[in-house]
């Protein structure tokens, strides 16, 4: 197998080989080429607001500490003792000046510097004079509008360059409050018994919206008789570098700043005020775009920003080809009223949460795909061609088309097939 992705513009056909979801060999390659070289979301800066705050995170298959030092600098440390390797910090979160490994009681300042170890006389006088025994910092840490990303490759391009055209869409989310955005505590940590790439596809797939989530829409229609007049429709876009977005209208309410009859009439006033503030800051057109349009943004490889009935930052990592760990954060405007925050939280848990009326059905769909891939030897290819005919006619792909997924797969294929290509070129 030299090719996992086949794109034939003329035939309007885009195929992905199903071994991409099941092969251990491909997962190994992904760990090497994607999860060790791409920019990976670690968290939002507001998760560690105070000096000494820290959160334990698993990113790219590594155990990391997301910390704010006593010097107010945010760092990411490998959570592993330079002495014998044990996890230094066992708490999921907290505030501390010192991390101490319990195994041999080596102590580190919250910036990672080794500051104490028992039996010092057994070590050379110049032990750690080069800092090699400090807790190691992750190679790269950069942020964009409060979103923090790590990269384990020192030679990676800058985060801003990496995000490229996706920045425009992150801005539409980050601009929702003049006081900035914050991540709520207690992210939802769940899983799906399916390949990690399936949740990225699913997150920018409006085509599945109605059939998979009919029960959610039934409830919305019941709350608002006019809901059926607002269709799920809009555009899909390849943003380059594997990033993609769909931007569309929907029948649900958005705490910023689209009221729905399902909410109290008195809440309308507050929503109108939020909208008015947006108009003052950005003008009518951009304010309308921020307030009334939904965006599902896929940042290659594994960050999804759903700015829909609430905002989720969702990351997901493969543990096995058929099992991923998901972390979903809720992002909300700083200074939002308690009433608005409650509406946002209700919207979130109803659709986006793992105990809601929608996400569990997505989870089921992805698990059924994974099960279906048992038939790989007989039925080998996924079809992701919806909307290619439109593009051939020079039209903008719809949000219910699959251009967003093709964007991801083009980048994935470029990375994963790199040495296959090099070998082929060498033969010519």
């Amino acid at each position: 197998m030299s090719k996992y992705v086949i794109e034939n513009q003329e035939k309007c056909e885009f195929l992905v080989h199903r071994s991409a979801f099941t092969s251990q060999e491909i997962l190994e390659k992904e760990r090497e080429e994607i999860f060790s070289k791409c920019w990976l979301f670690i968290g939002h800066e507001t998760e560690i607001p105070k000096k000494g705050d820290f959160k334990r995170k698993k990113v790219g298959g590594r155990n990391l500490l997301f910390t704010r030092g006593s010097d107010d600098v945010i760092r990411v440390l490998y959570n592993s003792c330079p002495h014998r390797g044990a996890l230094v910090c066992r708490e999921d979160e907290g505030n501390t000046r010192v991390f101490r490994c319990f195994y041999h009681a080596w102590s580190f300042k919250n910036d990672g510097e080794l500051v104490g170890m028992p039996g010092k006389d057994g070590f050379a006088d110049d032990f750690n004079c080069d800092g090699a025994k400090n807790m190691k910092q992750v190679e790269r840490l950069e942020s964009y509008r409060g979103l923090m990303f790590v990269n384990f490759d020192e030679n990676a391009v800058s985060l801003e360059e990496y995000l490229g055209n996706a920045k425009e869409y992150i801005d539409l989310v980050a601009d929702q409050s003049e006081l900035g955005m914050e991540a709520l505590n207690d992210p939802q940590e769940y899983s799906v018994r399916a390949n990690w790439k399936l949740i990225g596809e699913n997150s920018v797939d409006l085509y599945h919206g109605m059939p998979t989530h009919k029960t959610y829409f039934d409830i919305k229609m019941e709350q608002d008789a006019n809901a059926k007049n607002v269709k799920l429709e809009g555009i899909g876009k390849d943003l380059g570098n594997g990033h993609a977005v769909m931007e569309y209208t929907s029948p649900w309410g958005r705490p910023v700043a689209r009221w729905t009859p399902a909410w109290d009439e008195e809440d309308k006033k507050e929503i109108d005020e939020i909208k008015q503030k947006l108009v003052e800051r950005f003008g009518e057109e951009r304010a309308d775009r921020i307030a009334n349009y939904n965006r599902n943004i896929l940042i290659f490889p594994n960050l999804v920003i759903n700015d829909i009935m609430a905002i989720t930052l969702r990351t997901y990592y493969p543990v096995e080809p058929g099992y991923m760990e998901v972390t979903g954060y809720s992002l909300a405007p700083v200074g939002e009223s308690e009433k608005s925050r409650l509406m946002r939280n209700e919207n979130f848990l109803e659709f986006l949460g793992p105990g809601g009326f929608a996400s569990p059905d997505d989870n089921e769909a992805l698990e059924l795909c994974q099960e279906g891939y048992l038939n790989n030897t007989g039925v080998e290819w996924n079809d992701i061609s919806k909307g290619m005919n439109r593009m051939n006619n020079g039209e903008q792909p719809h949000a219910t088309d699959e251009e967003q997924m093709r964007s991801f797969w083009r980048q994935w294929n470029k990375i994963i097939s790199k040495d296959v290509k090099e070998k082929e070129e060498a033969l010519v």
Partner: protein
Amino acid sequence: MTKTRAEIEAFLYHENELLDEWKLEEWAALFTDTGSYLIPPLKNPTANPATSLFYVHDDRKRLEDRAKRLLKKEAHVEYPHSKTLRNISNVRIKSQEDNKIVVRCNFTTYRTKRDVIDTFIGVQDYHLIVENDALKIQEKKVTLQLDSLRPHGKISLIL
């Protein structure tokens, strides 16, 4: 009108039996008109739903929607229905005053579907009301004793 421990336990067993038998509308009818059903964040069980994100925060209407939804074929995650088994134990009657009873119990809920067993464990806090001599649920709060929802991946059942 005081309720005996046996009557309170029988009510809780009945509730769990309804859920195991997928009689979900009958389950919803156990709640008072202003009743609620809650699952707070795992690491923050005393959180305020206005400031923290819950897994479930259902008023009477939404818990009824939840029950109705799960009986539809389009609630894909539970179609065909998974098999479930609920056990409750360590029932503690915390207080009984006027018509209000506060009860806490431990629970284990097993769900099996497609050859996988998911186990949910935790504590349930009930605020019960005696209405016309019958018990009704004013609030059911489920505190999961799990450090994450891995590997379950979801809470597709009513716990």
